[in-house]
């Protein structure tokens, strides 16, 4: 296991370099430094001299990858790519193109994103696993068929509809919670309740169907039949045997969502005016702020790598039969 983890950690650097390179190429295929300057300076009365000055000031006046005007290693190091990349690997996000401290913004926005994502994860797990178990137990009954119908209906509806519909129904017609907004501390509860409910509901259909399948697969196995034969109660069979043995897919589902806990949800945050990280990247793309875009993509890549490593570790913990890297 240790050797496996060390090997996986060694993959991290080339993956991050690759992600950084792809982000860089994709961004600059669409946006030239001139475009970025014009976006930041505005449309009115801007001259080429002002554009050139902005580029020089923001370190975008160099060549992108290869500086033919200098000698030696500076041909590589005196480029936008090198200078912008090297600091990222030291987790120095620096300043956005309009002068904001990116690290500070990320720290500020992480809290609101977590305030929604963590409860969503927990409530979603509780509700979907419970319902999944319930329909697995009641398979073949009208309840199972009714839940299947509801799940398919829930899956067929666009995520945006849930948001707009919930805002209209719960916040506007029933006036139970605010339509949008956020405030720090405990008072945030009334602002995040609706987005949490919407996210749980939007994912409910697919998740319940998924867990039902997982649990049914376990229920059909011989050890469960043995447990029944031993005369164990329904709840003991389902929780102590079925649920425990269905942990692997559960862990996969949980750990893979870890990065999105931090990175937030774009549409939900936007509609509910939650000042999280979800809209941070899109705002940066719209305003062509490369400094923020590369930082957020880099952070996302790091979080996904960490998430996958945790998945492997959790697998080994949940199922001692798994031994990574061993024949």
């Amino acid at each position, binding site marked *: 296991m240790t050797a496996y983890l060390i090997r996986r950690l060694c993959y991290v650097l080339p993956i991050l370099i690759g992600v950084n390179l792809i982000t860089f190429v994709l961004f600059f295929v669409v946006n030239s430094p001139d475009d970025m300057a014009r976006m930041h300076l*505005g449309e009115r009365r801007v001259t080429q001299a002002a554009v050139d000055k902005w580029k020089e000031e923001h370190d975008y006046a160099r060549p992108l990858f290869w500086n033919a005007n200098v000698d030696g290693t500076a041909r590589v190091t005196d480029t936008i790519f090198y200078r912008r990349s090297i600091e990222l690997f030291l987790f120095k996000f620096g300043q956005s193109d309009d002068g904001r401290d990116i690290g500070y913004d990320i720290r500020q*926005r992480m809290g609101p994103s977590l305030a929604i994502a963590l409860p969503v994860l927990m409530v979603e797990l509780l509700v979907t696993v419970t319902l999944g178990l319930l329909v697995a137990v009641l398979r073949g009954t009208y309840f199972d068929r009714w839940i299947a119908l509801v799940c398919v209906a829930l899956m067929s509806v666009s995520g945006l509809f849930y948001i707009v519909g919930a805002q209209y129904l719960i916040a506007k017609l029933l006036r139970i919670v605010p339509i*949008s907004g*956020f405030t720090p501390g405990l008072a945030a509860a009334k602002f995040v309740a609706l987005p949490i409910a919407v996210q749980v509901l939007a994912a409910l259909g697919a998740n319940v169907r998924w867990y039902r399948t997982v649990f049914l697969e376990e229920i059909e196995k011989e050890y469960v039949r043995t447990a029944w034969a031993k005369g164990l109660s329904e709840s003991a069979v389902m929780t102590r045997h079925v649920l425990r043995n269905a942990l692997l897919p559960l862990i996969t589902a949980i750990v893979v969502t870890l990065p999105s806990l931090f990175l937030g949800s774009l549409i939900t945050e936007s509609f509910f*005016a939650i000042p999280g990280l979800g809209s941070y990247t899109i705002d940066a793309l719209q305003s062509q702020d490369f400094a923020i875009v590369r930082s957020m993509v880099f952070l996302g890549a790091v979080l996904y790598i960490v998430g996958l490593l945790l998945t492997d570790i959790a697998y080994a913990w949940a199922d001692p039969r798994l031994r990574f890297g061993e024949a």
Partner: protein
Amino acid sequence: MLLSSALRVVSADVTPWNNPYPADNAAKSILYSVFQERPKHLDPVSSYSENEAVFTGQIYEPPLQYHFLKRPYELIPLTATAVPEAQYFDARGKRLPDATDEQAVAKVIYRITLRPGITFAPHPAFARRPDGSYYYHALSPEITQRAFTLNAFPETGTRELIADDYVYEIKRLAHPHLHSPVASFLGKYITGLNALARELRHRTYGKAEFIDLRAFDLLGARVIDRYTFEITLSKPYPQFVYWLAMSFFAPVPWEADAFYSQPGMAEHNLTLEWYPVGTGPYVLNENNPNRRMVLRRNPNFHLETYPDAGEPSDGAHGWLAQAGQRLPFIDEVHFMLEKEDIPEWNKFQQGYYDTSGIAPDGFDQAIRVGPTGQPELTDTMRAHDVRLAITTQPSLNYIGFNMLDPVVGGNDRRARLLRRALSIAFDTEELISIFGNGRGIPAQGPIPPGIFGFKEAEAGVNPLVYDWRQGRAVRKSLDQARHYLAQAGYPGGRDPASGKPLVLYFDAATTGPDLKSQFSWYRKQFEKLGLELVVRSTDYNRFQEKMHKGDAQIYSWGWNADYPDPENFLFLLYGPNGKVRHQGENASNYANPAYDALFQRMRVLPNGAERQRIIDQMVALVREDSPWIWGFHPQAFTLYHQWVGNAKPNLLARNSLKYRTVDPVLRAVKRREWNPPRLWPLLLVLIAAVVSIVPAVLVYRRRRYATAL
């Protein structure tokens, strides 16, 4: 049901559940508004966008401002004692009566005298110890490392506004690390500004290093005495006086630059861009562009009173009720981040925002066409006693032809007739009706209503596109357009070279699916003449590149007035402002020597009969050449609640929040009245869920206890 009723009774006197604000704010004098995009610049030298002016206009005070109530828009003093008169001098220093002979003018001087006794809002940059030294001008890295907001600096101070502060700001236009969008433009006029910029560039300064601009002389900005300064222009620019009402000429104290330029401050967002300091009615008390921005009353704000005169109808609207009272009226203004239109609109209807525009999705809920054909509020809005203000904006949205294009461009007869035919076929009235919900006035030329030079009714009609019949402008027939097209060499819209429909290209920066239907409508307008329109949609950057290189053929563009002078619109067609050759704002690259000569004369004349005569000639010329399909002047529909006072729209004054009033008691009552929670539907859902589980449980129990045989 009973529970719900009981809850309703209990909640009748408490804060509504859906109230997004703290309960103790209900009785406070706070105006609630929104922002959709965080402002990029709050430094007056670099701020130029409308969404920034909402903040900077309340914080900074340039020497002049626009009268809040009077129309046409009128400049009045703000911190100055009077609106300065331009003084013209020839090369020998002899005073000239005016700038009619522009070539004779060697310099123009504006002398501005400030009102004494105006002080800056409290700020740490001014804080001094008893010995006179500044508390926070020599901060150690340990302190700046821990500082992320101005709250880290508890001591504050102030000082009197003096002429040096204005001169200092004018020098900042040349600052090598501040990116003023107007520096290049003003450099053409303000004597020595470009030379100062060059001098500062040649010296090597660190990016955040404090450049004490007091040590540099600028010929075009000079302090005369404590309260008087002069601005010198190298050539006449009568519209310059309007610039004195813009934030670029707002005072910046050197202490602020010295404070923010210390090492470590910019890295923690502690800059003038984020924590402005001014003399205006409000200070930016909280700057959290991720959630909200809060303006709070400036405790040091000088004496300024509500105007006692305006338009004749202002009294009837109640807009003169506070005449003579001290400004500002509201203690705080909270701008909440709302990225989407729907939540904003719903919260306005619930009373949580005090004013609102009308999003396309909400238009039918707010506005209907009345019996007289005029827009009026719907019954729902009337039931809430919402008020509507309609104003024609001093701006123009037009369809432009690239005059450098071989097909639609050029000044030959063929191209003129082609453009004229298209101008007739392009039904602007329908465009306004379908895509703007009727919010606009078809343009007859480049000058919008409310700006000198604009002519109303028959006198203002473009005779090449409209006929005046029975008291209204009627678009000429399509037959007339087809006739022009045939004369241009495209009978039936066919290109004689290929025998097929002439293909024209519309270049656009696609920004959303909504535009697709609009482009489809554009195609239909051209199809009326048998022409084929190909829409070349691209991203914003590529579109800008096309415009800068002159590769676009037909495009859509707009201009919003910087100031209420016809020069600010007629310069959009001035040859030396061509976008491709001169990087100017003449996006069509239109160049007509006769027009250019008239423009040169018009720009230096005062408003009067002579200027009107020249403007008429210029408008006639561009109508004849038709470099634009004239498009329309948009109308702003603003809704405001019954508890908001003095909401007269002023589309040029950026500092109008100081005139607003709000009645928080009435607002709190209405919010409670409009927002009682309804719980019974949720209870029904809960009961239904429980009931639906019962049979399942019964089935389960039956199966659980069933025997095998």
